[in-house]
């Protein structure tokens, strides 16, 4: 066992209101510079939809992530090392600006400076790339927000295409029959990062202490392999500096115990940040399991329980400080992923072992039940609907469990059970223990889960240990202090206190 620590995130999709506050605050903090006009380290997509960059999830096109070779080893989907060096001069899998969008601004100045005349002055859109006016805006980072233009755009969603292949049924995008939810996305800070593995210069790296994946700006040479190899398309090319840039998990904040900016400003309070311990020896094996459906359970098993004394001892031995162990024990992320198992990884089939997990939304199910005139908080109705509503469940499975509907249904049932249980509580009725039992939890556990998902306060949602404490602990280990107090030791002899010589001469 080789325990390593990772700062991980969980997002509760039921609570995302699609306000894009996270995207805007992130952009203002990190990517409001020239060269990154089109870059959103955090973006919020409406699903079903094409996302940003367009159809990023279509790995037949972009060749992101890993694939398992016939001999059972992992190889980058875009080819082995020699092949990648061969495509160094023109990366065949790189999205161009058209796939993101051409960033623009408006000629605001014109509103004030235009000479007096009969017509109202207008602020025309101007491309931030060519500086030329744009006649018609064609696409933007949230062009299909709230299912806008869904009849045209949503059928091109790669997941919709897959579900249609499997269920053989068309997802309808008429207003009253479709389902919809938001998916905020940042870099996954993967345990088996494809971006790091694809960088020819070795400029990208994963930090040992907290698992944050970063680009060393001094070593990046602009080969762009990371951009195409990240299956989530979360490394971007700064076209002004010629260097790759990506979400840093706001490491300057995380290091001093503060949550990331997207978490801090999340209006829906749907983000959770905390420590996960995992066994580094198991990562490669777990990422290379034969059946894609086993990827989620395999990753789940590579996590370590910080309350297990054996884990604790091994973690200490590999240099994880007490402060971090304590944070791992209090981690809300661990509870959602492991204890209650209501969070699932995003696209585990890319085999990068992502570390931003999602609690799937129950709302499409609840709304469908309510729309049919039934009680949306009745256990029977909800459980029945989870089984009956094949398309949303299949869709969520394509998103979160490589197409395996079983875990998605199980999670949704837990969420439904929590809903039913809490309604009884709120109405002052005695909750039916059979409901909790049917999802293999107790009533108390359901209530604890409810507290975590619904009412958790700031300090319960973000449990981030500081790097400074870890440094101090490491320093203390390397320079053990004298056990005894110098004052009073060996009576009769003068005690030397650690005073600076400058002070003594004053």
């Amino acid at each position, binding site marked *: 066992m080789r325990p390593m620590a990772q700062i991980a995130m969980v997002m509760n999709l039921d609570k995302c209101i699609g306000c894009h506050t996270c995207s805007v605050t992130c952009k203002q903090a990190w990517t409001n510079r020239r060269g990154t006009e089109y870059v959103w380290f955090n973006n919020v997509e409406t699903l079903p939809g094409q996302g940003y960059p367009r159809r990023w999830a279509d790995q037949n096109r972009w060749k992101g992530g890993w694939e398992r070779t016939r001999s059972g080893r992992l190889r980058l989907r875009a080819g082995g090392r020699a092949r990648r060096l061969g495509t160094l001069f023109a990366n065949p899998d790189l999205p161009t600006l058209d796939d993101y969008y051409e960033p623009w601004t408006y000629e605001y100045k014109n509103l004030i400076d235009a000479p007096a005349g009969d017509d109202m002055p207008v602020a025309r859109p101007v491309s931030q790339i060519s500086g030329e006016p744009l006649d018609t805006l064609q696409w933007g980072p949230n062009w299909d927000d709230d299912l806008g233009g869904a009849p045209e755009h949503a059928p091109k969603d790669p997941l919709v295409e897959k579900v249609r292949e499997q269920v053989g049924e068309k997802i309808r995008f008429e207003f009253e029959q479709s389902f919809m939810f938001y998916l905020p996305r940042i870099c996954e800070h993967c345990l088996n990062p494809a971006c790091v593995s694809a960088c020819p210069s070795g400029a990208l790296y994963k930090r040992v202490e907290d698992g944050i994946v970063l680009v060393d700006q001094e070593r990046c040479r*602009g*080969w762009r392999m990371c951009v195409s190899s990240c299956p989530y398309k979360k490394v971007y090319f700064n076209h002004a500096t010629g260097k790759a840039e990506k979400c840093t998990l706001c490491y300057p904040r995380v290091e001093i115990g503060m949550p990331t900016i997207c978490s801090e400003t999340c209006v829906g309070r749907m983000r959770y940040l905390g420590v996960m311990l995992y066994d580094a020896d198991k990562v490669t094996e777990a990422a290379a399991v034969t059946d894609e459906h086993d990827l989620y359970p395999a990753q789940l098993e590579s996590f370590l329980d910080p309350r297990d004394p054996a884990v604790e001892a091994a973690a200490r031995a590999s240099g994880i400080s007490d402060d971090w162990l304590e944070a791992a024990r209090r981690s809300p992320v661990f509870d959602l992923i492991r204890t209650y198992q209501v969070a699932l990884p995003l696209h585990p089939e890319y085999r990068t072992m992502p570390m931003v997990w999602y609690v799937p939304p129950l709302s499409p199910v609840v709304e469908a039940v309510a729309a049919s005139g039934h009680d949306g908080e009745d256990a029977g109705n909800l459980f029945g609907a989870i089984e009956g509503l094949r398309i949303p469940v299949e869709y969520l499975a394509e998103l979160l469990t490589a197409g395996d509907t079983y875990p998605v249904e199980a999670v949704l049932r837990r969420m439904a059970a929590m809903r039913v249980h809490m309604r009884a509580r709120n109405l002052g009725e005695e909750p039916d223990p059979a409901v909790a039992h049917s999802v293999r939890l107790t009533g108390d556990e359901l209530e604890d889960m409810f507290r975590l998902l619904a009412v958790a306060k700031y300090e319960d949602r973000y449990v981030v240990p500081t790097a400074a404490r870890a440094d101090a602990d490491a320093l203390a280990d390397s320079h053990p202090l004298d056990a005894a107090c110098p004052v009073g030791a060996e009576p009769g002899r003068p005690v030397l206190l650690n005073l600076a010589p400058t002070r003594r001469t004053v």
Partner: protein
Amino acid sequence: MDLMLWGVLPYVVLVLLVGGLVRRGRHDRFGITTHSSQLHEARLLRIGSPLFHFGMVLVVLGHVVGLLVPRALTDAIGVRDHTYHLIAVSTGSVAGVAAVAGIGVLVYRRLSVPGVRRATLRSDPLMYTLLLGAMLLGLTATVLNSAGAAGDYNYREGVSVWFRSLFTLRPDYGLMADAPLAFKLHILLGFALIALVPYCRLIHMVTAPVQYLFRPYVVYRRRAPGGQPARRGWERAS
């Protein structure tokens, strides 16, 4: 004059090259990049860039062989002059034409695609001019020479011998006196280009990432302390 051009200039170029590389390596690692413009335009790039780069790799290899392998050696292993020139001229011109075609596409792209044009660096015009000039003169010299227009000048007994004498620090600059003009100009432009390498985007070629073939896939680094050697002036107090 000959002394200045063929006896002194080569060393000046070397100093500019090495000095520039060291300075960039010490003080401006952030600036070392390919400055790729693939984000703006990919279709033309995917034709032009591999043609140019692979062509150039062959061209450079050809120059190394032509300049460094003495005639005595090829004679000794039984390669006759005629065969040698046949091989050199045929592979050389294929590679050269590929590289020129590639750079042609790239220059056209740079001028015609608005995004790429805006991404042009200040050093680019000079770099492209020298590069194109050197390449075209090189091709001209080869064609003229093999067509016999320059008499029967054999660069392996003139230019190459002079070039090797540079390493002995006693350059035999007199040898260059009777080289044809096209050769001389090609060499001068080549020198200018080499001297420019550290000061323009060409510097990315010295960071060709061969080590990728040998390192493990995932790179781990410590956050400091002790992970990275501190930058100069930022060392921790001990």
